């Protein structure tokens, strides 16, 4: 062998070698082997047609699933993010304690609407109004109804009350409020007020009441939870009695939350009606 041989152009194919090799190379695999391989190839195709079809859907289905999961996560995180903002947002929405006790409730529904739109009215007041505007007629202008003193006092003790509330929630599992943000509550009230004031539709009233109830641990501090703890195993009559007592004592916000819970627990029982002032 010489180096010249090794430097032959790579494209060169020796026609004589090709011809001779083609003439010589005639061996073929046995027919039985051919049949076995072809049969195996057919078996493989028929054994996995469904898998192949499914494989065609893997990518689009996976992408769709990812989009759904991602969207759900984003929505969930957004909601949880709003809840985390709740304390400071709530603080901003809260009026001073003195305002809660001293400021008269707005008398006219029109004012209510304006206040809700502008966000001037305290959140608690707006919620209270949204609970039962038809049950509780608006007070005449200039006449201040009994302020929810208990609620505002308890609001001042919020850290302690919140801890108590957590314990009481654990003690009363039937009452599991959803933690709405004050922002959302305000928005709900504004919608109620702008949509149906002065006579709020029953459905909207119910929704508003639910929101209030959901927010009650913060709005009414530990008072509601305390009441629920005492009433947890009591019969409906005892509930009605306690609600009346609370109303007479001027703690109408707590009473209304209890009424909502009473309705939920005892749907067949008569609902304690609110006495006229």
């Amino acid at each position, binding site marked *: *062998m*010489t180096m010249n*041989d*090794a*430097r*032959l152009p*790579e494209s*060169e*194919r*020796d026609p*004589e*070698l*090709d011809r*001779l*090799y*083609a*003439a*010589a*190379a005639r*061996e*073929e*695999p*046995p027919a039985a*082997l*051919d049949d*076995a*391989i*072809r049969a*195996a*190839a*057919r078996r*493989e*195709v*028929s054994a*996995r*047609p469904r*898998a*192949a079809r499914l*494989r065609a859907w893997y990518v689009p289905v996976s992408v769709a699933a990812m989009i759904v999961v991602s969207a759900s996560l984003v929505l969930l995180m957004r909601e949880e993010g709003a809840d985390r903002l709740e304390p400071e947002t709530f603080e901003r929405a809260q009026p001073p304690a003195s305002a809660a006790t001293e400021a008269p409730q707005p008398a006219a529904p029109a004012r209510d609407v304006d206040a809700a739109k502008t966000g001037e009215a305290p959140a608690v007041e707006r919620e209270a109004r949204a609970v039962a505007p038809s049950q509780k007629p608006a007070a005449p202008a200039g006449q201040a109804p009994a302020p929810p003193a208990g609620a505002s006092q308890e609001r001042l003790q919020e850290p302690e009350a919140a801890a108590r509330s957590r314990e009481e929630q654990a003690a009363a599992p039937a009452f599991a409020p959803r933690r709405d943000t004050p922002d959302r509550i305000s928005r709900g009230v504004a919608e109620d007020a702008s949509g149906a004031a002065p006579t709020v539709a029953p459905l909207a009233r119910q929704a508003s009441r639910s929101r209030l109830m959901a927010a009650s641990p913060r709005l009414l501090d530990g008072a509601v939870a305390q009441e629920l703890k005492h009433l947890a195993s009591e019969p409906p009559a005892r509930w009605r009695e306690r609600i009346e007592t609370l109303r007479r004592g001027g703690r109408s916000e707590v009473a209304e939350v209890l009424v909502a819970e009473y309705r939920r627990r005892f749907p067949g029982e008569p609902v304690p009606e609110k006495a006229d002032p």
Partner: protein
Amino acid sequence: MPRDAEPSDEELMSLYRDGDAAAFDTLYARHRGGVYRYLLRQCRDAATAEELFQDVWMNLIRARARYTVRAKFTTYLYHLAHNRLIDHFRRHDPRVAVSLEEEGVEAAAVQNGAEDPAPAPEEALDDRRRAARLLELVAQLPAPQREAFLLQQEGGLTVEAIARATGVTRETAKSRLRYAMSKLREGMRA
């Protein structure tokens, strides 16, 4: 029927991957002889060649779902055959397996020199005898050079495709092929 009008090997394999068993039959008919002879010339035993041949095609069948067109189908097919051959030689003749896997051309040349028998000159060989002589010379080639030659003859592979199928550099494949052809020419002239 001109070959241009027929589906390419890659198209047939893609059809088979998607469930067309008839496409496999066509593909198999095209390449069964070449793959079988490639294996037979390398292992030099019909029974072993048949076993390896079946394994190669079964591997192809099992891997059909993962097939994507990245190179010529013949490169892919003979790469499977080459790998199966290496596995076989690792068990039965590690020396040959090493020679097929290693890159060096010089080693092959040395081996070539050691194995190169003195050609038996005959004055008038008819085609049949000359063809038989060629097969003898092919059998006497070092395994890497023989493989390169067989891939060119049976698979129709280019130097680049031979390099890809055997996992060596283009230069190595080129040198192996040159040495093989050179040696065969010399042997036939002798």
